[in-house]
């Protein structure tokens, strides 16, 4: 019998225990992968080249305060600015409060130039621009409510006292958050009695080099005016938004630590059970000339294999599962998707490997320390 064969036989001799242990390691690594992926999705907003050129201008006081719409021509005239789009969070209700999805009033003709990564049929863009109460909707929201192009929907304002009646004219399928709904800011203004208010301005810079100056210029232009502005890159804006949720990193980080710790406990305890059972065999191995390191190697290989098998099942299982699940509706809209990135997979597998090593340390030490005579005396 070869050494690898010996290790394999040992590992397989109690199939029930083997499968229970592998499964519990797999479950823990599944959870670990899930938590890390969720953390990644929540704290690392997706970036694209187009997004790097976008700036967000909002009221300095807070997101709950608006800006005058008369700022727009002044922003457009600034050097380095290629597009300016009004964007107002509508926050309406579609039929029921539970049907939440993001809705924005925007300058219809600027939507495509500003969010250039959003994939949409060019004909649909024109339809959207040419009809006052048209709206563009992301594919996820379309699917969620079973909408099709040409459907009429009514949103009931909660922040703004108006109820826009919209016709779906375009569907975008890729690129940006696919749950958004965009409609004409002009129509919104009309419903609101042209009060001249805008939530934010989203600006496209001509190139990345002008951004630092542009940020300073915008904020200093409107300093000491009735509404002072705060300008930041889209990424800084999103990160700031995320920080409002509180310390998610600490929460998820500590839960992940507990999971890993639990895993070590479970695997280490299984390994010690497996090794205590064979203390007589280990004593015989020693008696026929295996030294401490060789015995450690045998135990390590078994524990390593067990943890690695669990790790592979858990990490890749999570990956495969999340590719096929509708995360958006499952998480009540908190998460858009769960993309298990290669680096998270690598982290998960590293944890599994370390687990395999750590959990066999104590049991192997104990069995190596036991003398041949004591080992042979053991009954079970």
């Amino acid at each position, binding site marked *: 019998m070869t050494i690898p064969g010996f290790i394999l036989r040992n590992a397989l001799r109690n199939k*029930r*225990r083997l499968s*229970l*242990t592998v*499964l*519990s390691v797999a*479950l*823990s690594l*599944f*959870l670990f992968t899930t938590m890390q992926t969720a953390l990644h999705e929540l704290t690392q907003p997706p970036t694209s080249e187009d997004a790097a050129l976008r700036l967000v201008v909002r009221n*300095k*006081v*807070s*997101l*709950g*305060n608006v800006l005058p719409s008369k700022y727009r021509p002044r922003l457009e005239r600034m050097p380095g600015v290629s597009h300016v789009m009004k964007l107002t969070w509508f*926050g309406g209700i579609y039929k029921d*409060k539970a049907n939440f999805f993001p809705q924005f009033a925007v300058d219809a003709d600027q939507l495509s130039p500003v969010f250039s990564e959003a994939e949409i049929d060019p004909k649909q863009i024109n339809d959207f621009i040419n009809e006052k109460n048209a709206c563009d909707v992301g594919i996820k929201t379309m699917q969620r409510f079973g909408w099709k192009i040409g459907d009429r929907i009514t949103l*009931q*304002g*909660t*922040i703004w*006292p108006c*109820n826009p009646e919209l016709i779906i004219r375009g569907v975008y399928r890729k690129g940006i958050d696919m749950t958004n709904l965009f409609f004409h800011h002009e129509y919104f203004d009309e419903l609101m009695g042209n009060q001249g208010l805008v939530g934010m301005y989203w600006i496209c810079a001509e190139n990345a080099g002008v951004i630092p100056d542009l940020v300073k210029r915008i904020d200093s232009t409107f300093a000491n005016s*009735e*509404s002072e502005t705060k300008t930041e890159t889209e990424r800084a804006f999103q*990160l*700031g938004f*995320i*920080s*409002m*949720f*509180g*310390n998610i990193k600490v929460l998820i980080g500590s*839960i992940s630590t*507990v*999971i890993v*710790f*639990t*895993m070590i*406990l*479970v695997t*280490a*305890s*299984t390994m*010690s*059970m497996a090794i205590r*059972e064979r203390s007589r065999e280990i004593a015989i191995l020693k008696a026929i000339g295996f030294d401490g390191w060789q015995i450690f190697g045998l135990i390590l290989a078994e524990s390593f294999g067990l943890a690695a098998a669990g790790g592979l099942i858990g990490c890749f299982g999570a990956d495969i599962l999340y590719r096929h699940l509708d995360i958006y509706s499952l*998480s*009540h809209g*908190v998460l858009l998707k769960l993309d298990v990135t290669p680096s998270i997979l690598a982290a998960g597998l590293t944890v599994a490997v370390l687990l395999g090593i750590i959990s066999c340390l104590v049991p192997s030490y104990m069995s190596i320390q036991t003398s041949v005579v004591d080992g042979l005396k053991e*009954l*079970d």
Partner: protein
Amino acid sequence: MAIPLRYNLRSLVVRWRSTIATALGIALVVAVFVMVMSLARGLNATYISTGDPRNLLVLRKGSTAESSSQITRDEVRQIRYLAGIARNAAGEPIASPEIQVLVQMDRIDRTGTAHVLVRGLGPVGIELRPQVQIREGRMFRQGLNECIVSQRIAHRFVNCRIGDRFPGGKAEWTVVGIFDAAKTAYESEIWVDADEARAAFNRSFYGSILLRPVTDAASVTALTNRIESNRDLSVRVLSETEYYKEQTNTGAPIQFLGSFLAIVMSIGAVFSAMNTMYASVGARIREIGTLRVLGYKRRDIYASFLIESVLLALLGGALGCAFSLPMNGIATGTLSWNTFTEVAFEFRITGELIAKGMVFALVMGVLGGLLPARLAARKPVLDALRSI
């Protein structure tokens, strides 16, 4: 006759290494469950404890939060002097038109910024909230752009200590007092004078009116009807407690996280309990045989092993609850989607939550023990005795 409990206890003690490892595994699952649920519990408790059932809140029709509601000055004038509103000692109607503005502030731990709710109100509004008590400093005075902040806000955000100043709209606000709001939602607020807030933040509108009707049920309904049926007023009336109850959906994602973790982790813990129990059965086959010879029935053996597994799980459950207890009362905060502001709250570990954690451990123990106990009960006596 049942096998004495002492037999199970001793067996757990003899196998102390696997007992500890398995119990700790279950303990950690229970601890995570209790802690995450105590977050949701604390958040809900904050909202539920806020609001006085005697008060009514007037918001704009269709609006779900005070901070996104608008009430015109004309509406305030019409509502304030309606019959059916109680009067205070000075003879004024107890109706408080208020304004809510979000102000972005930096966190003290430098982990980012958050929106804090600034509430502009007058003396009547303060009178309506007796749970708010000044702990340090004094109440704000009109005309000086002074403000008072809650203890929790003072702990969580920069420039919120007495004497500090922070910008908000066109004004600079000076902190003159720190208040304690008995763990209600007001613990997440900064209070200023209503008129000063409207001037500083350029608002011609108010956000809401909090009022106290004269105290009998008939007149409350009459007042509500009078306000809601008036076609000049685009408002809705709800009781203050009802309003805060609506806000509790903020905790839903946390609750989801708690249940998800509990379910997945508990499956892992059940597997580990099964492993331990199988090993325990395997090592005691001769003992099982002896017990059978002594006259114990199969079902006694079955019950005995199941009880042992449950004991093990309950030990874990108790440990887990003990681990989570230090979190009780620790302050934290999150974003409320309704008001779009930071809501400060604390982990709240209630007796009910502890009980749930223990029941959860019990279920894990039963599930983990069923199959190994069955195996033990089914061992033929002779085989069992013969095995070494």
